[in-house]
């Protein structure tokens, strides 16, 4: 590729093989800057959203986000293609490699600065701000891809590419650009009857000056966005050809199985390697600080030999910790319930609690690495290739530039493969270092994966609420432990006094971001409590919420839609009930109604779920619905059966027989509707999760009068 020329925050150049390459210049949005950074400034030249137009008339969009099933790559390509007026069948998508140049840090940097730079529209909420700070670069998580890369990268790059292609045509035909039309990857000039494809114009377009502020399309004119498009990665996922991290193979590759100190923070004290070393195919027993690995010529042999070992680990002083002691400490930290105004007609209080949860991605953690004197190569499925590279480099004592990282398909992420929880990448690299120069693929057994997660934090809250004589709420307040922030504790209700206060009760269990982050626990707490308040006021829980949403018309519209979808208020047979809940996260508001049916013995069946969603503009209607459906099912597993329990400092559950999730048979009928909107797109992967647990709990109350204040429901007596 030739040298880039740069103008403003867009760069473009000619491809070596012919054609136009164009990218958005990251550094233009450096912290606190309202103007463009000069070319020679530190970090200049970082391009992250790339569009390639080649002479074969194919438009390739390089996407700095990995595809873990949310359809992000397809949605991003749609956003670029829409601006270009390209023929969708001529669009290809490629995941950008883990190079700094591709980092989506331009937005991250913008967000971490004190102010949002001029070219960026404001509309990013606090949650994204925090996540952006924490994720670092190139992350796929926090529902970020469409919201940030798409809105601020793809759209701009697509509009710029279109202007350059038109400029090239206008120059060739000696006509004014404004007289040219663009449709289906072709520029034409009606008056002279001339036309040319993008492919034919690409070379000349690369010589055009780059527009500094291309004009994005009027959303009213969209023809591609807001339609259902098939994902690019689908075929490989139905014919078995997709290569996930666990599938990667190299000639001469060895295989590693590991046992990690069962108590987080524990270290390997001793291990007699002899029993494993005498087994067939075993190459070596590798001792790491916190683990022992057996390396053999096949995974099965490695894992059999690992079973023959009896490693001794210490417990880092946490051997006395259990879920019970953790919740006792929580209870103590919460102390007395929040104070309510004197003179309230009625005060209610309630405690809620939820357990730790594992991500339990279907693909267990796996990492392949080859370490040689020249450097290292690492292959894995992660949500953040750049940070994975850094993690591997740190583990090996190398500079990031000495590590080549290749991201592979992910068998589920849900937050487990984000920066801060890439331990498996460091571990895979260290094992390969011990076996250098042989490449080694490390696979975690399901048991290892289950017990060494970065769990959704266990959490507890203590709520108090006060009603006046007319049944109107005058105050709600809570103390909580287990993490929380402004977004997750936000209640869209007009109540004179609202407060949520975090308390600390630290423990040694590893926690991390779990699909919807802090919102899964707080969604359950706050939307259960508002339901309790409604009943205490003798009001219908839907009407009670709606009447408090005066200041929040978007919430109100979503709530009303969900209620209408479920025909709220209809008579149901004995033992059945509807429950409603609403929550916002990652820029999207979701209300869900659950229909619960309980047998006289207390056996619960969730029959149906209706979800109304305001996620701003829906880019790809089909994948959007799939994400909400998936979020509901993921959240239902947590509500009904999921729990990670701690005993003697370690995780009790080990595999899918005791860490359960729901099956096809348990899955309710699900109906999803989107509120039409032209607001900037919100996230979709996470917002379906938080409302489902409270919707089900509230439905159980409607059906039985039993108030659920603890999850999972399988531990609660419902008769």
């Amino acid at each position, binding site marked *: 590729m030739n040298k880039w020329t740069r103008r403003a925050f867009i760069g473009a150049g000619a491809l070596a093989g012919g054609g136009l390459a164009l990218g958005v210049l990251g550094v233009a949005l450096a912290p606190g800057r309202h103007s463009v950074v000069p070319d020679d400034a530190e970090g200049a030249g970082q391009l992250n959203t790339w569009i390639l137009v080649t002479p074969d008339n194919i438009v390739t969009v390089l996407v700095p986000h990995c595809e*873990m*099933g*949310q359809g992000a790559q397809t949605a991003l390509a749609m956003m670029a293609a829409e601006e270009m007026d390209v023929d969708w069948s001529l669009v290809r998508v490629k995941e950008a490699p883990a190079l700094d140049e591709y980092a989506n840090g331009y937005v991250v940097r913008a967000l971490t600065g004190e102010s949002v730079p001029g070219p960026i529209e404001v509309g990013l909420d606090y949650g994204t701000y925090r996540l952006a700070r924490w994720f670092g670069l190139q992350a796929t998580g926090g529902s970020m891809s469409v919201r940030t890369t798409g809105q601020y990268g793809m759209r701009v790059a697509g509009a710029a590419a279109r202007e350059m292609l038109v400029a090239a045509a206008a120059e060739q035909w000696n006509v004014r650009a404004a007289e040219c039309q663009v449709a289906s990857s072709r520029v034409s000039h009606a008056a002279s009857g001339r036309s040319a494809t993008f492919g034919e114009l690409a070379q000349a377009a690369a010589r055009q000056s780059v527009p500094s502020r291309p004009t994005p399309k009027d959303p009213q004119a969209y023809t591609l966005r807001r339609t259902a498009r*098939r*994902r690019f*990665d*689908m*075929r*490989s*996922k*139905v*014919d*078995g*050809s*997709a*290569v*996930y991290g*666990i*599938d990667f*193979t190299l000639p001469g590759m060895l*295989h590693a199985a590991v046992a990690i100190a069962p108590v987080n923070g524990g270290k390997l004290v001793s291990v007699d390697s002899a029993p494993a070393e005498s087994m*067939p195919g075993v190459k070596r027993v590798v001792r790491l600080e916190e683990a022992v690995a057996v390396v053999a010529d*096949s*995974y*099965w*042999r490695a894992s*059999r030999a690992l079973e023959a070992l009896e490693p001794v680990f210490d417990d880092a002083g946490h051997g006395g910790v259990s879920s019970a002691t953790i919740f006792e400490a929580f209870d103590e930290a919460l102390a007395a319930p929040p104070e309510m105004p004197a003179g309230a007609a009625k005060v209610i209080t309630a405690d809620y609690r939820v357990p730790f949860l594992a991500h*339990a*991605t*279907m*693909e*267990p953690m796996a990492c392949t690495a080859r370490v040689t004197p020249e450097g290292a190569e690492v292959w894995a499925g992660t949500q953040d290739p750049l940070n994975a590279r850094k993690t591997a480099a740190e583990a090996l004592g190398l500079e990031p530039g000495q590590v080549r990282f290749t991201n592979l*398909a*992910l*068998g*589920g*992420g*849900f937050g487990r493969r984000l920066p801060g929880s890439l331990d498996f990448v460091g571990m895979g690299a260290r094992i390969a270092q011990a076996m250098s120069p042989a490449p080694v693929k490390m*696979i975690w*057994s*399901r048991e290892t994966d289950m017990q060494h997660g970065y769990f959704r934090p266990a959490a507890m809250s203590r709520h108090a609420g006060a009603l006046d004589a007319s049944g109107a709420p005058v105050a709600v307040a809570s103390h909580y432990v287990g993490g929380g922030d402004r977004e997750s504790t936000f209640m869209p209700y007009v109540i004179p006094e609202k407060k949520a206060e975090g308390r600390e009760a630290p423990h040694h269990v590893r926690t991390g971001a779990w699909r919807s982050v802090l919102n899964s626990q707080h969604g359950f707490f706050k939307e259960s409590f508002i339901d309790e308040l409604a009943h205490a006021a003798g009001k219908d829980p839907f009407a009670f919420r709606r009447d408090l949403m005066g200041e929040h018309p978007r919430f109100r519209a979503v709530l009303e839609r969900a209620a209408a979808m479920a025909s709220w208020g209809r008579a149901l047979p004995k033992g059945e009930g509807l429950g409603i809940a609403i929550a916002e996260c990652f820029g999207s508001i979701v209300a869900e109604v659950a229909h619960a049916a309980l047998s006289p013995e207390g056996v619960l069946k969730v029959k149906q779920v209706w979800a109304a969603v305001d996620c701003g503009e829906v880019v790809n209607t*089909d994948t959007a619905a*799939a994400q909400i*459906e*998936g*979020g*509901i*099912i*993921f959240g239902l597993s947590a509500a009904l059966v999921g729990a990670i329990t701690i005993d003697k400092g370690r995780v009790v559950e080990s*595999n*899918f*027989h005791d860490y359960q*999730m*729901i*099956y*096809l*048979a348990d*899955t309710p*009928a*699900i109906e999803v509707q989107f509120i039409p909107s032209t607001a900037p797109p919100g996230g979709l992967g996470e917002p379906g999760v938080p409302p489902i647990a409270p919707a089900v709990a509230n439905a159980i109350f409607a059906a039985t009068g039993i108030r659920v204040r603890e999850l999972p429901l399988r531990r609660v007596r419902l008769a």
Partner: protein
Amino acid sequence: MAIALTVNGQPRTIDVEPETPLLWVLRDTLGLTGTKFGCGIAACGACTVHVNGEPMRSCVLAVSDLEGASITTIEGLAPSGVLNNVQQAWLDQQVPQCGYCQTGMIMAVTALLSERPNPTDQEIDESITNICRCGTFARVRRAIHGLAAEAGGTR
């Protein structure tokens, strides 16, 4: 110990420890990585293959018990590149999310429908017990219903 079996129509001789699970023979010995490892205890279905036409969880099948058996994996469903009707329905309904569980899911559904082209919901619930962590079940059922309708009307 050498074990002879047929994999996707091709005769193979496998020389591994007799208790080696079929899953790892497929993945590591034969390089057929479309069959996935999810749990190793027959709890998730990611490793589902057909053994003499029957859906089986290959992570708990000792290869020594399979002498002479005929195995079909996901790679064997579309030998000429033309997807089978279940795979095609999965594309049409855009069922997969991360896709990791889906090869096993497709093997289980293919087996179910070849046995019962028009299953009841109860039969679907009882025979499709694969775990999908991404939560694609709603679409799995929709796709099965669609296939059943093609085969002669839903019940």
